[in-house]
């Protein structure tokens, strides 16, 4: 039998694979189940009650009746541009539940959704008014002089500024991917915020608050292939896996739950941060005071995400060198910006460590879990602005 020898060596293309017809029909059959899971998506996993309200913000308190192991209480502060339940997304993907299960009294700020009347809110309103009142409320509720503070992303920057201005109120400070040094890090946001191409004054003067579609578009375009193509390919491949679908839909709910950002805060953030880099220079003014990070003396833990496309590590690393704390640590975790909170790896490897770090710097309570009653003098009232807010 003779064999055919081609006249020259053509590279053979890969064999055309058999299309996965059965898999396609399995996925079609899974659609009703996916619709059911979509209806079950909830915003927040851990039971809580509303402890405090002021204007549009609420402060959530998690499992207030559970016996506590540690004090002082912990307040979590998320960014102003998204909803905070990313920190409590699902059972098994909740940063809040790590601290609650460890025995901390956990509070979280839900800033609410600013409307046209809030366009003139500035950084000093969020820091010196809202956050200060919240901290005083928690001090009063817990009977503690100082609380622990944890901030995520822009919330971390707010927490750092608050701690610099009111160090006497803060026992421990944890930052998660908080932008401190806005020196351009070759990240896309630094390019897009270039004042030659981005007129923040025109945007704020025209729209009032920074519109949610602008913020949403910015976040999506930071990784367009991953966010607009790859994500849906992965969804198609795994849509018969119920657990994956549940996590996917919970994330999608949060990603698409954008809120506007108060106009003057947005203007301040872009000009003082991206354009002027004033925080590291000590030139960022809140109220009548300049924020000096060297006034921070409490223990500090600086968490950064190695693969963060939104806040590169370089924007957070310098924080530990600017504070005066004797006890300062940083952890660079292999994850993305949001993965630092919700990835399985972070839930397994990072958050138990962070809980341990905080537990070592907190006071362990007696087994009854009861703390001291609030002192008779007005210590808990010191610095509190007159009560416009209501509790519960």
């Amino acid at each position: 039998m003779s064999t055919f020898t081609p006249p020259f060596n053509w590279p053979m293309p890969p064999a055309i694979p058999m299309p996965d017809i059965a898999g396609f029909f399995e996925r079609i059959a899974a659609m009703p189940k996916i619709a059911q899971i979509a209806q079950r998506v909830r915003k927040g996993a851990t039971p809580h009650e509303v402890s405090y309200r002021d204007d549009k913000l609420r402060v959530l308190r998690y499992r207030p009746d559970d016996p506590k192991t540690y004090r002082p209480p912990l307040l979590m502060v998320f960014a102003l541009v998204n909803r905070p339940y990313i920190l409590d997304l699902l059972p098994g993907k909740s940063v809040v539940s790590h601290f609650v299960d460890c025995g901390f009294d956990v509070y979280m700020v839900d800033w609410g959704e600013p409307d046209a009347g809030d366009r003139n809110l500035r950084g000093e309103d969020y820091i010196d008014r809202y956050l200060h009142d919240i901290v005083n409320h928690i001090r009063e509720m817990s009977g503690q002089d100082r609380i622990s503070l944890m901030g995520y992303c822009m919330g971390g920057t707010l927490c750092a500024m608050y701690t610099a201005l009111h160090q006497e109120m803060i026992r421990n400070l944890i930052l998660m991917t908080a932008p401190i040094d806005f020196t351009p890090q070759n990240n896309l946001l630094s390019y897009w915020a270039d004042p030659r191409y981005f007129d923040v004054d025109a945007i704020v003067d025209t729209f009032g608050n920074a519109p949610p579609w602008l913020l949403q578009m910015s976040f999506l375009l930071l990784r367009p292939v991953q966010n607009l193509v790859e994500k849906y390919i992965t969804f198609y491949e795994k849509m018969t896996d119920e657990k994956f679908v549940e996590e996917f839909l919970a994330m999608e709910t949060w990603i698409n739950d954008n809120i506007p950002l108060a106009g003057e805060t947005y203007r301040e953030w872009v000009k003082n941060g991206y354009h002027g880099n004033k925080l590291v220079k000590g030139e960022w003014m809140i109220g009548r005071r300049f924020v000096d990070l060297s006034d921070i003396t409490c223990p500090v833990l600086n968490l950064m995400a190695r693969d963060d496309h939104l806040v590169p590590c370089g924007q957070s690393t310098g924080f530990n060198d600017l504070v005066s704390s004797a006890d300062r640590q940083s952890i660079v975790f292999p994850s993305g910006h949001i993965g630092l909170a919700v990835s399985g790896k972070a839930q397994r490897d990072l958050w138990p460590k962070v809980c341990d770090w905080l537990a070592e710097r907190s006071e362990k309570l007696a087994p009854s879990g009861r703390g001291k009653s609030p002192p008779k003098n007005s210590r808990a009232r010191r610095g509190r602005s007159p009560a416009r807010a209501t509790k519960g």
Partner: protein
Amino acid sequence: MSSPPNPTASMADVFTRFWGDFAANMSSAGLMPQQPPAGGDAMKQMQRIFLDAMSKYVDDMLRSPQFLEMLKTSMNNAIAMKRQLDGFLTNAMRAAGAPTQEDAAETIERLNSLERRIVDRLKALNDRVDAMESGGARTLARKPAAAARGAARRATGKRRTKR
């Protein structure tokens, strides 16, 4: 006589240049290997290579001055459109005798300003009360009373008498 520029042809040129450039980048990224990759998941690997290459290409494009200019133009157009719409609505509201968005914004700003003044004043009073409670009561109480006595003397023209 030269023929006028054909907009369709120039658009086609831009389109062709873009996709040609895209294909060149993809091939340099290894999308078109000389030998087919070994293993059963060849399609998966090719998909991965394609997506990674596309990511890098799009990332470079998003940093380019051309994209930034396009972004700036888009934002300017969005701002211009919003201003036009706001202008139209303002005129319509004024014609109807209804309050405009500017009127509402001004009212809200006045209310905010009033609120800040009240809160600042109450805060100052709160601080004074705290100071009094923590033992500065005699010092603080003396000053307003002394000022009141001084004002009374000035009003009546009486001179201060030593006690």
